[in-house]
């Protein structure tokens, strides 16, 4: 029983706390400040916006 009580109480306190800390960290480090910039993160100079990267089928390989 003691192990279970430990897990349950630990989870109930720790998980929401971890979620809140993550949210606080995100706002304090400006993760949500510039959504347009964040949306560009998968792209870079080598594979910029506008470049298709998976043209394989249809005899039109690129």
């Amino acid at each position, binding site marked *: 029983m003691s192990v279970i009580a430990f897990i349950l109480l630990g989870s109930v306190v720790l998980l929401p706390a971890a979620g809140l800390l993550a949210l606080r960290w995100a706002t304090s480090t400006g993760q949500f400040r510039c959504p347009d910039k964040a949306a560009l*993160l*998968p792209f870079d100079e080598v594979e910029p916006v*506008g470049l*298709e*990267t*998976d043209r394989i*089928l249809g005899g039109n390989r690129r």
Partner: protein
Amino acid sequence: MINQSQTLRALLPGDALTGGGIDGGNKAALAEIDASCRVPVLFFFLSGLAWLLAGTVLALVASIKLHTPGFLAGWEWLTFSNVRTAHLNTVIYGFASQISVGVTIWLMCRLCRIPLVAPGLITVANLFYNLGVTVGVGGILLGDSTAIEWLEMPRYATPILFISYALIAVWTLVTFRLRAERHLYVSQWYLLAAVLWFPWLYGTAQVMLLIEPVRGVVQAAVNWWFAHNVLGLWFTPIGLASIYYFIPKVIGRPIHSYYLSVLGFWSLALFYNWNGMHHLVGGPLPAWMITVSIVASVMMLIPVITVAINHHFTMVGHFGKLKYSPTLRFMVFGAVSYTLASLQGVASAVRSVSEVTHFTHHTIAHAHLGMYAFFTMVMFGAMYYILPRITQREWPSTGLISLHFWGVALGIVLYVVPMSIMGFIQGTMLNDAAVRFLDVVQFTLPWLKLRTLAGLLLAAGHVAFVLNVGWLLVRMFEPYRKPVVRILTGEAETVAAGK
């Protein structure tokens, strides 16, 4: 603190060190990152695909047994209950989870903009993982199943798996800590959450159900809290993280609304974990527990609709590209199926619907709409993108790609649509006291045969994919073939290398 991150940074290979971690400006080139991921990601993909083939055979045996019970009836280790359970465990833990880890590794490195760190750690995790699944599935076939759904692997197998999950979580945190890109893309939110949630879910369920079991209906509650969250907090976030990365990458257009994507993540984190008790509607649980889960299921419409709107509007004007990109085909199929599976799930959670559909093939159809049409299709799409980049070779056969896509796309539609309809009719018949039980069983037979046909189509698709992957690997080891520069750099001209 400085010492700690310096110690971690020592894990970065050679010249990646100079820029020095977060915002150090030393972001690794995509081609360098892809090459660094080759061995560990291939380990996860190849072993995952081997389990997919095993799971497909087990699935076909289970499916045939439901309409032709005499099939393989002389082999006691292949009873329906053994085979079905072995199918679930091979495809969930052997296949889907391992491909998820491979995709997570690659996405984390790419989005953190660093080459893969600690390859030894991740390789050990892979070895432990496959050992755990082999011991677990072997134990199930030998009759050692725990009889707890989604946790059927015997007690002697699960600690091995737990070690592996823990190592993967540690690796992800180290990679995150060392990232060269300070900002997080929405996919990283999903991935980080998933790799931390899963060991916690798995560990808690193991302790409460196998090591120090709770009593009575609490067992069922913990069981479905776990099983539901495997779907909602492990597979779903990894599937969505992939869609959020690959659709924009393939079409070359950023996601429609980044705000919506973040809202989708936080609302999923808030509502999904309350959903588990909707699997026990009508069960002997306090009514309020089930009601809370039903309410949370309906609340899931918020993340589901945000994701659907975002994906749809990102794709608007780009649907023509489905013709050329296998990744996009699988991803869009998966994204649409995510919406459909979720809407079907929300309906099945409502008491009046569950009264009809629970204990019928409708639930099996929903399970495959979610785990196959959504999740597996997204993972196939991701592998189509990742494999040529980490092996630096092009897909050898476009014919096999088409066979794969059409085999599994038609197969899963033929599986899910008839079984959903049949399950509903089966439920109304079961609820009618005037209908004999045997008549209900008879009614299901033709539909179950149709499912076996669908399974054969799916199996053909799987074989086509595995052949293409095998061929790709053969090319990788042929020294005279030049690497394909074009797919790594995005250059537009056609390169004859590898032909």
